[in-house]
């Protein structure tokens, strides 16, 4: 049974990657299990300067998911490269995906370059964070803006650049195509959907930012549809994210065209979520008669 997949030149032992923001900087999760069982690890979104993020409450529970407005809390790229990365490297030797955030093209470029030099294996450019003003989503909403960031980052780094796309864009396939044309090596999608909840007793918003990012099993059908659409529109590898909680979910995304997947919200409610999928995967493959995982990528059809 071959569970390995490829993201461009990079081979992952399996397609299971914890999603950015739901696994800290990785090393702390080594308390739960050996991270080397994972296909890769994606780090918490990182900006140039340290950020506290948004006021609390930053989360609210929903049916089969949650809202979050963490707002890119991180200690800044210097501290991440100096402290967090070495701690992760001490317990984990597989591929590392740095999640690069910014409030300007220069910031994206600078943060990406620092991670490029520091040995990250993939630079995932988060142009889709719904939880910060004047940043993130603004760059991912239009094909032009996303292409501009892609080109700027590509010109500055050696490592593969994956653009992380927003489901809140008007036309995610158009953004995807623009990124591909601007030189992106791959795409990650989806980031959180814009959602909201209020307290039925008082009418007040349950999250400090009023609207916030919605994710978890509830969003899986939307994420899968977008991955399917985008895979029909581009040739570069796509990493599927959104509501994945089981090996069956993973197989849905690979069928729709994803080359690997990330698991987000589910890590929060089950710290073993990724490991469980890693362990379930060969069992499901055997049951379904799948020998080589790579052979089912895109088997659903060719988009649209």
């Amino acid at each position, binding site marked *: 049974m071959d569970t390995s997949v490829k993201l461009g030149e990079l081979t992952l032992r399996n397609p299971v990657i914890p999603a950015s923001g739901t696994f800290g900087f990785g090393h702390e999760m080594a308390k739960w299990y050996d991270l080397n069982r994972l296909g890769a690890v994606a780090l918490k979104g990182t900006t140039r300067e340290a950020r506290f*993020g948004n006021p609390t409450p*930053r*989360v609210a529970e929903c049916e089969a998911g949650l809202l979050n407005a963490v707002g890119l809390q991180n200690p800044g790229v210097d501290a991440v490269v100096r402290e967090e990365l070495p701690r992760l490297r001490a317990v984990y030797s597989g591929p590392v995906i740095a999640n690069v955030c910014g409030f300007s093209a220069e910031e994206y470029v600078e943060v990406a370059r620092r991670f490029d030099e520091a040995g990250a294996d993939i630079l995932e450019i988060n142009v889709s964070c719904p939880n910060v003003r004047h940043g993130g989503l603004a760059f991912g909403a239009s094909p032009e803006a996303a292409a501009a960031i892609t080109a700027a980052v590509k010109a500055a780094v050696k490592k593969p650049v994956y653009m992380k796309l927003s489901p809140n864009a008007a036309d995610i396939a158009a953004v995807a195509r623009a990124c591909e044309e601007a030189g992106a090596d791959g795409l990650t999608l989806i980031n959180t959907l814009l959602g909201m909840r209020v307290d039925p007793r008082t009418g007040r918003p349950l999250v400090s930012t009023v609207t916030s990012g919605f994710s978890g099993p509830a969003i899986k059908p939307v994420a899968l549809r977008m991955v399917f659409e985008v895979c029909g529109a581009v040739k570069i590898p796509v990493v599927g994210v959104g509501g994945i909680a089981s090996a069956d979910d993973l197989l849905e995304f690979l069928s729709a065209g994803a080359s690997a997947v990330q698991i987000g919200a589910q890590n929060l*409610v089950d*710290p073993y979520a990724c490991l469980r999928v890693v362990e379930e995967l060969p069992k499901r493959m055997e049951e379904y008669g799948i020998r080589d995982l790579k052979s089912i990528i895109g088997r659903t059809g060719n988009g649209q």
Partner: protein
Amino acid sequence: MYKNALYRVAENRPIAREVFRMRLLGDTRWITAPGQFVNVRVDGCYLRRPISVCDWDGGGLTLLYRAVGKGTRLLSRALPGETLDLLTGLGNGYDPSAARGRRTVLIGGGVGVPPLYGLARRLALAGEPPAAALGFQTAADAFLAESFLTLGCEVLVATADGSLGERGFVTDPLSRLDYGYYFACGPEPMLAAVHALGREKGAEGQLSFERRMGCGFGACMSCSCETLAGPRRICVEGPVLRSGEVRF
């Protein structure tokens, strides 16, 4: 270290208005300090629910919780014999050693009282039963006061309506007490008042905070709190913060 395991419900019944005591049997090796919490999976809820460990021993642990919303109401219906999925060993917990040699008071408000009981029992076992100042809305909401007495604690009770103990806030009887160190847990306005009073009295202490949580084990940054020493995750570097670092 953390642990994820199944626990068997041995008891789950009301001890005050909407307040339940749940005794769970299972592995407690990962619980290392009073004031730590567990994160409970509740069938029908997506997120887990954080609850302080009220007390624990080699065979299991006790939780005291108020049924306030969907999750805790569902929890209150769990029957003896059912199993619950818990993460244990979460949070830093109180550091009792810091109080050594100083007159110590435990200050609890409402469902902030439970974690102080485990702490009190350990201090009493060490031969230093602390004083306990407990605040509730009304007599019907009160619990554990007798248990603190049994440990040999001096117990001060305040209720908002005077139906039990003194009428007023827990800081009212507290203001007349002489103490050099305190351990507090309760709603944030209470913690702020306790903190201010401690300053007046030149007392240091440890305060346990609540934040709405995503994970409870440091992965998501949902529970951050700004302190004088920088941002802290209430679920890892907390829930207990030192009086010298908190910011209100």
